[in-house]
């Protein structure tokens, strides 16, 4: 097994909610990236606004890093409780940087005058900039770069506050530098690269940018962790991009608004988590009957019920798949990388428009809160395919067609009348109890599945399509599994990442049959994709690597699990 490269450093910041860890995280990401170092950041947090303990991991490396690791090289404890909170992630080599006022004693504690330097500058509030300074000092990052980032980060603040933050950072920096110079902490050597064309985004931003690229101009949602980032993002840019962004009174209103908006010609979406989607399911069924397109983003969190509101799980595939009464086609996408989230979120609108079915984008807390640098996304790369027709006077909304797709008109565009009926209906959209027609209408709606399957997203085989052992995964575990396979460095083992979980691409069955051994990795307790694969392909994946602790898989966890499996 390859050991992780030395120039891959994992920093964990831990403190109470409200202490400003997010500020430190944002600043450090910008500083490291501008210094030419690749970064990955993710957080785990409690469902509270103040107190408790939250942590953020920032990985810094000369090469690309895009996944959560259990290993902690440096823990910056802004609260004494951090050590107990993160005990499972502190190893014998972990250096714990903690305020010198602590009463805690341990070998690997490095005491730092964080609060003293902060109060010298002007108060407790500057402790975050001291911490940023200490970390930058350890990495010996050029002062100029740090100051530039601080100035732009605090741009809206008074000059006095900006200069005090710089001062606090400098005093921290000197201390950090002294730790390296005195040999207290030994830092790896990094080889900076040119990342000036890279951007740093998280999963929620990737989904949101993709939605805009896909022509989304309407979002109605009810705030629910961890999905709210998408609503916030589209609301923030509503004027700039002409997006109607409305906070609905509940998820039921949200989905009915989004469906109404599509009916009137908008490209609409709703963002929610499992509990909210449970409320939306009647609306999903409505979209199935009306044959109105709809896009829903579900950022999963552990259930049942309120569950763990701020944590992660892939436990709602079956909810997304079966939510909604009656039988009608749908599409479920589960992006694995930020680039893929951008592309698939845009594509979701084209698919919904073309097939007039619900399209669900399935992510999770781990995914929406994961940040890393990627090459700039291309806004021109996505073509918006609109399927609206101008209606003629004899227009029939539910015209029976061979492929099941009736040309979709919208009210006010053309001479025809556009009807949408939740009852079983005739071609003109009027209520019918003609049972022969009922059968024709069901067949028409389900006929769309043929073309939907043909258009399914092809799963990715990595690193090779020559393999003996196949590791199947879907959605957010993409980079964790990839890095685990890199660590294992076995030429006989390949990852099959499925980014469209329903309907499955037709190649999946033969790919599975080709393998000598197959394992599946899912962040849930029952192997929901494995069940769906069995249902679709009759192929039973017996070896399941599952995790439902609420904390996402770490690279080490998957590396060990695959290693055990292949022993």
């Amino acid at each position, binding site marked *: 097994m390859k050991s992780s490269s030395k120039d891959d450093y994992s920093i964990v910041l831990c403190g109470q909610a409200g202490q400003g860890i997010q500020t430190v995280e944002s600043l450090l990401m910008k500083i490291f990236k501008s210094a030419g170092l690749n970064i990955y950041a993710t957080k785990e947090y409690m469902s509270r606004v103040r107190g408790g303990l939250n942590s953020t991991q920032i990985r810094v490396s000369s090469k690309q890093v895009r996944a959560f690791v259990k290993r902690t090289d440096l823990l910056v404890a802004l609260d004494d409780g951090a050590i107990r909170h993160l005990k499972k992630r502190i190893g014998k080599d972990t250096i714990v940087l903690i305020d010198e006022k602590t009463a805690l004693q341990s070998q690997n504690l490095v005491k730092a005058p964080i609060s003293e330097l902060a109060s010298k500058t002007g108060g407790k509030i500057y402790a975050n900039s001291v911490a940023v300074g200490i970390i930058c000092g350890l990495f010996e990052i050029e002062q100029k770069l740090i100051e530039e980032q601080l100035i732009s980060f605090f741009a809206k603040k008074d000059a006095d506050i900006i200069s005090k933050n710089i001062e606090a950072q400098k005093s921290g920096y000197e201390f950090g530098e002294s730790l390296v110079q005195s040999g207290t902490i030994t830092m790896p050597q990094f080889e900076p690269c040119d990342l000036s064309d890279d951007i740093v985004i998280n999963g929620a931003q990737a989904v949101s940018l993709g939605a805009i690229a896909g*022509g989304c101009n309407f979002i109605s949602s009810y705030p629910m962790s961890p999905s709210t980032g998408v609503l916030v993002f589209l609301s923030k*840019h509503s004027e700039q991009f002409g997006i109607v962004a409305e906070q609905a*009174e509940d998820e039921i209103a949200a989905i009915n608004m989004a469906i*109404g908006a599509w009916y009137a010609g908008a490209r*609409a979406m709703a963002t929610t988590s499992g509990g909210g989607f449970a409320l939306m399911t009647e609306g999903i069924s*409505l979209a199935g009957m009306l044959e109105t397109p709809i896009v829903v983003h579900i950022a999963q969190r552990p259930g049942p019920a309120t569950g763990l509101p701020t944590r992660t799980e892939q436990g709602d595939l079956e909810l997304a798949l079966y939510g909604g009464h009656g039988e009608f086609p749908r599409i479920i996408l589960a992006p694995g990388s930020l680039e893929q989230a951008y592309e698939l979120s845009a594509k979701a609108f084209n698919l919904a428009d073309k097939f007039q079915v619900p399209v669900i984008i399935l992510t999770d807390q781990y995914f929406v809160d994961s940040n890393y640098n990627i090459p700039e996304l291309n806004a021109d790369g996505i073509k918006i395919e609109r399927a609206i027709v101008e209606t003629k006077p004899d227009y029939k909304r539910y015209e029976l067609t061979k492929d099941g797709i009736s040309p979709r008109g919208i009210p006010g565009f053309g001479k025809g009348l*556009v009807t949408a009926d939740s*009852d079983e209906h005739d071609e003109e959209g009027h209520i019918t109890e003609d049972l022969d027609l009922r059968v024709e209408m069901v067949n028409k709606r389900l006929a769309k599945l043929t073309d939907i399957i043909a258009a399914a997203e092809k799963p990715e085989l990595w690193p090779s399509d020559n393999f003996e052992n196949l590791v199947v995964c879907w959605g957010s575990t993409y980079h964790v599994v990839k890095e685990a396979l890199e660590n294992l460095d076995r030429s006989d083992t390949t990852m099959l990442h499925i980014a469209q979980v329903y309907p499955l691409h037709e190649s999946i069955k033969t790919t599975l049959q080709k393998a000598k051994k197959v394992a599946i990795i899912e962040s849930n307790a029952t192997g929901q994709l494995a069940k769906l694969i069995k249902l679709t392909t009759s192929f039973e994946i017996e070896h399941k690597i599952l995790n439902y602790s609420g904390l996402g898989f770490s690279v080490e966890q998957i590396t060990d699990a695959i290693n055990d499996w292949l022993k």
Partner: protein
Amino acid sequence: MDSEKYNMGDIDIAWCPGCGDFGILTVLKEALSELGIAPEELVMVSGIGQAAKIPHYLKCNFFNGLHGRALPAATAIKASNKTLTVIAESGDGDMYGEGGNHFIHTIRRNPNIANFVHNNMVYGLTKGQASPTSRRGFVTPVQVAGVILEPFNPLAVAISLEASFVARAFIGDKEQTKELMKKAIVHKGYALLDIFQPCVSFNKINNHKWFKENTYYIDESHNPYDRNAAFALACETEKLPLGLFYLNEEKEPFEDCITAYKLYDKPLYKHQIDTKKLQGLINGFY
């Protein structure tokens, strides 16, 4: 415009003979034709129930959605294309019961739509159970000892939420119903018109005669801009007032307040994504 233009020809209507819904349908077509609204410019939005079938009985664009969910859909349709005339029309169970939360928040949102509610104080399609507006003591197969819940007062709720147009009609007076419908459609903002209507099959108490005897016309001296006076009228239970209770013409409709149309004030289906702007936004995440 002739109201014939809205006629569907020989269709099978699912209402009981003598139902008040017939009168409302006739009046609606007349109101629309007198206002010169073409069927292609109109979207009727409804939920589920006997009243909610009304879009099927006149020529128009329509969205016959889920039980209780007409208002969110109607709001979104208007917000997506402001040039459309949008009427959300359904029964008391649909709008005030199943859709009660949306009723409250749609009033707060104030989209420029008309909301016509057929109020017969009973559930028709599910055969005779109490509706949110059933009077105390009303005996049904479910409320066997009579309704014990306080009846929902849609007008008082609407006025308390500062709805911009609040009125009540009785279909026994077609002329007044039509005039109030026209005013509600023309009104800029959310307009509630609660329409008393007898249910000939399941409500033998609140029949045509009862409505005649238990309603009266709001006096001409009433100032509809006086919210307290309007609220006092809405709280009357002895005899139920008919007419325009409350009017607030100063409130801006929802879709005129949202930022989406600041730069490009056209229906959403005409909006094009500005890829240069998007590239700029992406590049901002350096």
